[in-house]
């Protein structure tokens, strides 16, 4: 038997990992849902939590994608400048998406813009979507895989506030998005908020925010306080699973931020549904790997 090349090895792992995360939720999300379910007192909400738990059990047992909408595949890459396959990563991840589409199987979710044709492969112009952060002097790579389903992508919104609107305006914006369109996005949601300088920088950070663990906090004390206030406030609304009311609305609120222009406050919201399918994997230079998001995985 011929030995696999490094590119083949990494493609194989990423194919299996991309397929895997569509079937089983990450450890933090699973824990949070169990926690919310145990505290739920609303009768209909409990019927829904029971269905959700039964679904995840069936998906695991039957080895199938737990939600039919396996999303557009997005990879958020944090890679050392000295990672040996840096130049090959784009090709590796494209092939991993093609492979996972057959292996999962994943639903065909890439419709070429303007031609309006489904490519049938989950690949297309700039899809899978790649987001890059290069770390100087490192030789490892961390890859977050995210299945951006349609339902929880729809509420996404970004705007630029005037400084006079302040963080009060940020709170208004987050509540407006969650109470108008978030209700249909399969709550309890993980809400990501980007606070930054412009529309697109805030949007990117809001997506990075929902890649962070559910119960994590922003390192800045004011930002962390705002995360807690928004989370408690949204839960008080009692949106409940599927927007059918209950004791909770969200799994959490995560804020990511950057410095901003003194005249602008860019703010954006991205939402993750309860079936928040993301995975984090770290490759070392020798291509040995650790799965950081899910416990006890064999690919």
């Amino acid at each position, binding site marked *: 038997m011929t030995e696999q090349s490094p590119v083949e090895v990494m493609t194989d792992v990423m194919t299996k990992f991309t397929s895997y995360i569509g079937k089983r939720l990450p450890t933090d999300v699973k824990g949070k849902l169990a926690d919310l379910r145990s505290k739920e007192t609303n009768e209909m909400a409990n019927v829904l939590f029971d269905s959700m738990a039964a679904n995840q059990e*069936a998906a695991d047992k039957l080895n199938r994608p737990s939600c039919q909408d396996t999303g557009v595949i997005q990879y958020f890459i944090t890679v050392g400048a000295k990672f040996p396959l840096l130049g090959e990563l784009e090709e590796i991840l494209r092939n991993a998406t093609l492979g996972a589409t057959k292996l999962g199987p*994943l639903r065909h979710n890439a419709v070429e813009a303007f031609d309006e044709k*489904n490519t049938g492969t989950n690949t297309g112009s700039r899809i899978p979507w790649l987001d890059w952060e290069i770390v100087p002097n490192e030789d490892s790579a961390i890859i977050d895989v995210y299945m951006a389903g*349609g339902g929880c992508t729809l509420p996404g919104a970004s705007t630029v506030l005037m400084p006079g609107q302040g963080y009060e305006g940020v709170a*208004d914006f987050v509540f407006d998005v969650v*109470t108008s369109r978030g209700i249909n996005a399969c709550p309890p949601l993980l809400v990501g908020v980007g606070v930054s300088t412009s529309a697109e920088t805030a949007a990117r950070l809001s997506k990075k925010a929902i890649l962070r663990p559910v119960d994590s906090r922003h390192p800045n004390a004011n930002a962390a*306080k705002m995360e807690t206030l928004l989370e408690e406030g949204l839960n008080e609304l009692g949106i409940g699973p599927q927007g059918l009311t209950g004791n909770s609305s969200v799994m959490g609120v995560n804020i990511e931020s950057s410095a901003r222009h003194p005249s602008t406050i860019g703010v954006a919201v991205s939402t993750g549904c309860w079936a928040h399918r993301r995975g984090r994997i770290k490759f070392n230079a020798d291509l040995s790997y650790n799965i950081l998001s899910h416990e006890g995985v064999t690919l």
Partner: protein
Amino acid sequence: MKKILTTPIKDEDLADLKIGDIVYLTGRLVTCRDVAHRRLIDQGRELPVDLKGGAIFHAGPIVKKNEAGEFEMVSIGPTTSMRMEKFEKQFIKETGVKLVIGKGGMGPETAEGCAEHKAVHAVFPGGCAVLAATQVERIEGAEWQDLGMPETMWINKVNEFGPLIISIDTKGNNLFEQNKARFNEKKGPILDRIKSQVGFIR
């Protein structure tokens, strides 16, 4: 006791249902989403499936072909019903469909359509696609396959498909609209409290 609806559904089967009730469906369930709605309403094309007394599901499933060449349901959860709001009232009128299943609420137009033509909208728990697939006994047909896997009209034989939570009843009551009003009422005082603590720009 489980309340089970069976296709073809008659007006009297739905008359006593109220928003918030939970029912199950046995019989024929046809997937129908964005483009199928658009083809009937905007383009005036005839649907390839008779939906009179029937049930549709806003869903785009994952389907595979088994070794015998038959379609097999892998994963089939509901998609956001609100996307079909633009078409649904007219769709109910033209097709005579009685049960519209999806995810999240629908708007005032659909509620009007439900009241006028004695139909209901119900929610299947979103994201619970494998649970739903285990309630599909078999795929009996697939129309408009040119639309690709999610948009094809998949004709399914289902058994006790649910839970289905009635979100619009035949009186036009709308559970999600009522809930939204409740959330909006609560929102003001909560936001005031948060805003009093985030005056970070000084």
